[in-house]
């Protein structure tokens, strides 16, 4: 990626879609960008939902990894990773290859389906 580390994921951050959905993986001349963060503060951390603009469509997504360092003992990734999600919380893709932090397991109720597709945990 080109930009340096930011304080989280906010409006207009370029983001990397990490699951194997067609929407996320088909090439497009513009990278997927965040348009809204579902948070009181406009900055999203790991485990927050955001609205992405991909291929001219709006899609909700879940943040799974960020470049900004979090609390100690939590992993810091080299790119801002995101998993595409429907409105009811069902993931769009069927597999997630990249590692996902164990902290997401804390909210097992909301993210159980996403955690079920994940292969590696860090």
């Amino acid at each position: 990626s080109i930009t340096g580390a930011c304080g989280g994921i906010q409006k207009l951050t370029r983001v990397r879609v990490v699951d194997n959905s067609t929407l996320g993986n088909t090439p497009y001349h513009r990278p997927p960008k965040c348009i809204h963060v579902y948070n009181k503060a406009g900055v999203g951390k790991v485990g927050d939902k955001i609205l992405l603009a991909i291929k001219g469509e709006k899609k909700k997504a879940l943040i799974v990894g960020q470049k900004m360092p979090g609390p100690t003992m939590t992993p810091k990734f080299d790119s801002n990773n995101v998993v595409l999600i429907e409105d009811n919380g069902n993931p769009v893709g069927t597999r997630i290859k990249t590692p996902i932090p164990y902290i997401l397991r804390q909210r097992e109720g909301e993210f159980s389906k996403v955690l079920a597709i994940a292969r590696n945990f860090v």
Partner: protein
Amino acid sequence: VCRLSSDEKPGKFQPPPKPVIIDKLKQIEERRFLSPEFIPPRGRMDPLKFFIERKDMIQRRKVFNIPEFYVGHILAVTTADLYAKDKVNRFVGICIQRGGKGLGATFVLRNVIEDQGVEICYELYNPRIQAIEVLKLEKRLDDNLMYLRDALPEYSTFDVNMKPETRLDHEEIPVNKLQVRMKPKPWSKRWERPRYNIKGIKFELPEKVMKEAQKWSQPWLEFDMLREYDTSKIEEKIWKEVNEELKK
């Protein structure tokens, strides 16, 4: 030769005593390693604070063994994690940097898993850490390997199931003089500049760029007397103190 005891009955087999060879020509010097977080930073703080901190650090070291390691070693850390499988989380990575002093000493481990670079900053004295194993012993040319983020991912990938390497001697740790190849610019920091003083990168940049970078060199810094901090005497004192406490 069967050694009979005084009762004239064949007693238990006692092997002959092993010969002890003392090579007087070779003087074996024991290497001293004092972890860098013991050395108090330069300042006007009350030394009592550092003394109390050192006592706590030694207490923790008695309970849990923190091995000697430098930047460039490959470590495997197992932590207790409520939300992990079997409540235990194991991470393998190369130590990029060691920071902090006293109980807040940290070290950052980096690894590339499934084409995704992951870095975790661990605290040495955090009670959640269950075990630290040294998998590979090697020092690098620099103290700070942050440039691995801008290097090709092959230099940061390490096998998660690597077997631990045993130390041969209680003497030198091998220095790996690897010159790392970088991704094309732009990098997160301008590593070619002399303030970072990096010797472990193979700069494939044109000479013009390297000459431009030398414009920012500050050759007077190494002669600046106000920045001097001689730690040799402090280290000696702390080394004796720490060793005495650990033996108790």
